[in-house]
């Protein structure tokens, strides 16, 4: 009886942890970001909240809307 409840608890904990990992990964992937590749090989990555990022996202949204209209 005791081992059964332990197994149930263990399965629940493992399942919750796995679900949390999947959701975190999906959320991270869905985050809006802009990547600028420069001639010298460097990369500038901008995410939500950084200066200049919102302007880039606004132009990109406009582009998507124009193309899909």
């Amino acid at each position: 009886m005791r081992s059964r409840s332990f197994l149930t608890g263990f399965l629940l904990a493992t399942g919750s942890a796995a679900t949390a990992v999947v959701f975190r990964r999906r959320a991270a992937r869905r985050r809006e970001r802009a990547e600028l590749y420069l001639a010298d090989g460097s990369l500038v990555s901008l995410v939500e909240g950084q200066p200049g990022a919102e302007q880039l996202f606004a132009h990109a949204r406009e582009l998507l809307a124009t193309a899909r209209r």
Partner: protein
Amino acid sequence: MGCGSVGSMPSPPAQALADLTEISTQVEAAVVFDREGTVLASTLDDERAGRLAGSALELVRAAEEARPDGGADATQALVQLDVALEDGSVFVAADGDRLIAAITAPDPTVGLVFYDLKSCLRGLADETEPEPAKPRRAPARKATTRTKKDDEKP
């Protein structure tokens, strides 16, 4: 097809875009334009292509301002960019004065899309550049032997 589809034979930019959309299934729409906003070819109708090119130019200018140096250093010129949004991604690649902008569905294979866009731009550059003149072969010289006596002659 947009402005590049006039006539029975597609222009090089239109053909390059047709090849791009055939090869890259991730690309939903694309437009080739110059830095003044003139559309060279597009997968959309003329009106939308013009607006797409204008928005892409504004995006490029905003990206140049967002660079760490604020666009002052020429060695750090912007060569390509991608913006990932919830409902899709926007890509822009530049080759000299010519640019290509494309949109895709969310979570595209970024490297592959850039590779296809760059290939399209390179293909256009190859088609529009004049063929280099064939190097002429220098006429065969007669074998001469120089002697000290020849040098001494006035």
